[in-house]
């Protein structure tokens, strides 16, 4: 993943939805100082949080009966599978976020 400079912020917001871009700006603007707002780590966090939106809102990608799983149509088991996938993704985002915060708290006394 390419390293983004803080100046790239507006363009990235257009690509990533409002909800996830927001996640990356969780530090007050005033403390940006030395550390960039957007780091590769934060991009990964944003992607983790954004992925379920793409998967679930793209209904035509899963609106079918085949293949069945234990007799349950694809439409249903696929969405239930996404409950698990999105849980894992949110957990990853949570762990990465903790890393990010620890790094920042160590960096400047906030």
């Amino acid at each position, binding site marked *: 993943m390419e390293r983004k400079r803080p100046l790239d912020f507006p363009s990235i917001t257009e690509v990533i939805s409002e909800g996830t871009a927001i996640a990356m700006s969780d530090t007050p603007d005033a403390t940006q100082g030395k550390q960039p707002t957007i780091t590769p780590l934060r991009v990964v966090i944003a992607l983790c949080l954004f992925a379920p*939106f793409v998967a*679930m809102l793209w209904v035509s990608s899963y609106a079918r009966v085949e293949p069945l799983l234990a007799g349950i149509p694809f439409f249903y088991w696929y969405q239930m599978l*996404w409950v698990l996938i999105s849980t894992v993704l949110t957990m990853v985002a949570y762990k990465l976020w903790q890393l990010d915060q620890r790094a920042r708290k160590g960096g400047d006394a906030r």
Partner: protein
Amino acid sequence: MKDGVNGVALAVFIFFFLAVTVMGFLASRWRRAENENSLDEWGLGGRSFGTWVTWFLLGGDLYTAYTFVAVPAAIYAAGAAGFFAVPYTILVYPLIFTFLPRLWSVSHKHGYVTTSDFVRGRFGSKGLSLAVAVTGILATMPYIALQLVGIQAVLDVMGVGGGENTHWFIKDLPLLIAFGVLAAYTYSSGLRAPALIAFVKDTLIYIVIAVAIIYIPIKLGGFDEIFAKAGEAYAQTNPATGKPRGSLVPGEAGQWTYATLALGSALALFMYPHSITATLSSRSREVIRRNTTILPLYSLMLGLLALLGFMAIAAGIQVKNGQLAIPQLFETMFPDWFAGVAFAAIGIGALVPAAIMSIAAANLFTRNIYKDFIKPDATPAQETKVSKLVSLLVKVGALAFVLTMDKTVAINFQLLGGIWILQTFPALVGGLFTRWFHRWALLAGWAVGMLYGTIAAYGVASPTQKHFGGSSAEIPGIGEIGYIGLTAFVLNVLVTVVLTFVLKAVKAPEGIDETSPEDYTADAGDRGVSTELPKVGADTH
């Protein structure tokens, strides 16, 4: 439906009901604080709940009895379209991961009890705060009423409540008792009561679902058989519409509706006052983020629960009122004693959210109407007193609603409530991240969203209803059928953005922002966020 009262099931039901009643009253002693007479204590449980209590509380709060009854009922009636509840609850958690911790921090720092408190503090606008508060109360009332519908469904199937000819008082007596008891312990214990009862509720629900999802398919010959029968049933033409009853998979036309319903509902869920009350009662910012990773367990349960709708069809359950499909399925498939457990799960499942919702609505009234407009110098003790009384009034109102009006009225209002509450999103979530929006623009955007949403919902006809027949209508400019709430929300944001530019250009007064950027990331233990909460009131007026 079996004739007469199902004695065994009723006995089990009453046993659990009595058990939670005792718990509800004892809850006031649980983690009791020195000063009970503050809204932080009564209305937010002392803001002291850790990860697991918060998990049970939020789960008990968001996945209500009505959900348990209505989601499978929707599947039973129309198939795939009803399953949108699953993607909806999937999307909620990544979404709240981004903004809820910020709300927690700023609320702790400034002692905010409601979302309207925050909006007033952030934008310095009592008008905008009032709009958010009124929307919250309006959206919550029918939601409480629907919890009663959930209890009624269970009582009906157990044979309690009598037939058509029974005197109304005898018929509604069980419901009156249930709500009287609920009102009493909410009054005395506040948020601690539902927090404690939520443990029982969720444990019962998980047991019932686990058993149902294994036991019923075995009895019905496996999922192949269940879905084959359901597929046949959906293919049959509905005489009222001349179209098939439903489908196993949403067709091309239904996909927009499905996606917009999921997204719109996900955006709306944490605008509801009761969701925020449960959130703010947690001990730290970390508790909330951690909860976004464990709450999806409830979504999995909801998905499994939804499958019960198919099982009801395969089991040949025939009910006129779709809401009865699942209770009836339990009664038919389970031995009596376990049916009683299942009914208790639904019944208690109604009590927890009803208690939290009435507390949330009462807090909104007290903080943002009573204190802001009627008695600005109210002491914390007076605030608590008013809140307790209002929580009673709200419940009586909901009861009157259900008993005097047709059930469809409550459902219509609930549908409208979802559309309405979504219109507070720009002020609340927008406000958490930026002060760019102008307060008057937000108010105008809210008004436009409310108006459009209400008119559009009024115009939706269904085979059984002339108005409020559903929550989806054509999206202007796109031509697809989508969730009205989301369309209204987009309109709301557009109006807000355009007017903000205009108002900034003419230099309209911005209002005073009492928050500062670091308030939004403060955590428990930081200076000013520890156990002592700053007194609000003095600095806000």
